[in-house]
C-alpha cells in the first residue's frame, strides 16, 4: 500500500504545479506526490482550482470535505472509471426484490452486532446482544430490522459506559450536535469511516447510492453507510476506547459550549493520527492467508458484496476473529 491518506487540518490552497499537487498554507508550501495520494480529507477551509480537480480526477483521487464542526459535508467523487452496467442492474435487482434486499440488510446488522460483541468481549462485559440479534430471523420488513439494530446499538453504548472512565460516559447517544465528549468522538469517528468506506467503494464497480439497510433515498452515498456499519465497532469504537483509556485525549482537546461539545484542532490531530495508523495496520487474513490492512478489509468487503450480487458467492459479513 504505497498510497496514503492526507488529512488537511489547516486552511490553505490546493494547487497544481509540475503535474503534482501542492498544499499551501500560511506556514509552508508542501508538494504532495500525486502518485502517493489515496484520498484527501479536508477539515480546514480549502481553496482549489479546476486544474487540481482535473488532475485528481485523472488519478481517481476523491476529496472528502468536513465542515467547521467536523461533520461530513460531501465529497469530490471523480468520474467513475470502473463502470459495470451488469453489476448496476444486479444491484438494483437486489434492492427491488424485497426478499433479496432483506437478506442483505440483515447481514449488515448481523455483522455490526457480532463485531460489537467482540469489542465488549475484549473487556469482559456481559451483554444480551446475541438474544436481541436472534430476533432478526423473524423480521420481514426493513423497519423491523432497523428497530433491532437500534436496540442493539442502544444496549451496546450503555455497556460501553461500564468500560469508560467517569468523565467520558456516553449517557445517551446524541448527535447534531453531540452533547458530551464521548458523543463527539463517536460522531467524528463515524463520519470519518463513512468517507473511508466511500473511497473504497469508489475503487470498485459498485454504485454507492444503491443501498439495502439504509434507504437509498437518503440523498447520500448510502451504500457507504451500510458497509460502514460493520467497521464502526472494529475501527472507530475500539480506537475511541483506546484513546480514552490511554488518556491520550482529555478535556483540553474539546471545545465546549452550552449545548454541544466538539473536538478541537489538537484533539482532531491526535484522533486522525491514530485512525490513520489503524487503517495501515495489518492482520493475517485467515482465508487469503496473507497480511491485509484494515483499509484493505473494507475493500474486500465490497468485493464480497459484488460476488453476492453477481450470484457467485453468498455474502458473509466480516467478523473479527480476535
Amino acid at each position, binding site marked *: 500500500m*504505497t498510497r*496514503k*491518506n*492526507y*488529512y*488537511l*487540518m*489547516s486552511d*490553505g490552497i490546493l494547487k497544481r504545479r*509540475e*503535474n*503534482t499537487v501542492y*498544499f499551501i*498554507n500560511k506556514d509552508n508550501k*508542501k*508538494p504532495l*506526490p*500525486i*502518485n*502517493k495520494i489515496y484520498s484527501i480529507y479536508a477539515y480546514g477551509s480549502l481553496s482549489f482550482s479546476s486544474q487540481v480537480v482535473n488532475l485528481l480526477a485523472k488519478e481517481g483521487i476523491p476529496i472528502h470535505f468536513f465542515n467547521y464542526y467536523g461533520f461530513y459535508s460531501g465529497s469530490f467523487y471523480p468520474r467513475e472509471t470502473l463502470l459495470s452496467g451488469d453489476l448496476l442492474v444486479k444491484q438494483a435487482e437486489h434492492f427491488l426484490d424485497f426478499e433479496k434486499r432483506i437478506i442483505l440488510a440483515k447481514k449488515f446488522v448481523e455483522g455490526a452486532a457480532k463485531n460489537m460483541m467482540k469489542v465488549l468481549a475484549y473487556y469482559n462485559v456481559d451483554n444480551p446482544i446475541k438474544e436481541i440479534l436472534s430476533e432478526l430471523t423473524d423480521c420481514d420488513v426493513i423497519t423491523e430490522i432497523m428497530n433491532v439494530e437500534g436496540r442493539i446499538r442502544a444496549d451496546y453504548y450503555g455497556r460501553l459506559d461500564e468500560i469508560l472512565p467517569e468523565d467520558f460516559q456516553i449517557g445517551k447517544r446524541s448527535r447534531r450536535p453531540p452533547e458530551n465528549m464521548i458523543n463527539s468522538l463517536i460522531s467524528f469517528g463515524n463520519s470519518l469511516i463513512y468517507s473511508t468506506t466511500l473511497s473504497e467503494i469508489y475503487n470498485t464497480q459498485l454504485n454507492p447510492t444503491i443501498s439495502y439497510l439504509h434507504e437509498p433515498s437518503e440523498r447520500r452515498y448510502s451504500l457507504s453507510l451500510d458497509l460502514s456499519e460493520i467497521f464502526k465497532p472494529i475501527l472507530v469504537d475500539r480506537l475511541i476506547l483506546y484513546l480514552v483509556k490511554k488518556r491520550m485525549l482529555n478535556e483540553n482537546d474539546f471545545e465546549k459550549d452550552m449545548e454541544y461539545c466538539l473536538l478541537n484542532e489538537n484533539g482532531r*490531530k491526535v484522533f*486522525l*493520527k491514530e485512525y*490513520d495508523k489503524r487503517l495501515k495496520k495489518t492482520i493475517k487474513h485467515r482465508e487469503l492467508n496473507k497480511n491485509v490492512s484494515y483499509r484493505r478489509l473494507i475493500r474486500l468487503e465490497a468485493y464480497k458484496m459484488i460476488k453476492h450480487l453477481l450470484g457467485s458467492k453468498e455474502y458473509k459479513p466480516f467478523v473479527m476473529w480476535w
Partner: protein
Amino acid sequence: MYLIIVYDIKVERVNKVKGFLRTHLYWIQNSVFEGEVTVSEFEEIKMGINDIIEKDEDSVIIYSFRTEKAFKRKVMGIEKAPIDGIL
C-alpha cells in the same frame, strides 16, 4: 520497495528531474528524494529519469530496499521536509 534517490544534475535539467520525482516520491532535501513504491512504479521512475538526463553529464543514484524496515534513518540537525499525512 523503498527508494532513496540522490542526484547531481546540470542546472538546465535539474528542475525537470525534481518536478518528475515530486510526482512519485517525497522531497527530503536538495537533490534527495525517498519513498515507498511498487515494482512497476520503480520501472516508471527509472524510465522517466532516463528520458530526462544526459548520460554523459548527469548522475543519478538509486538506493532500493526491500522494505522501509530494512534500514534505519536518523536525522541530525533540521528535518527539512517531514513526511507527514496530517497537514
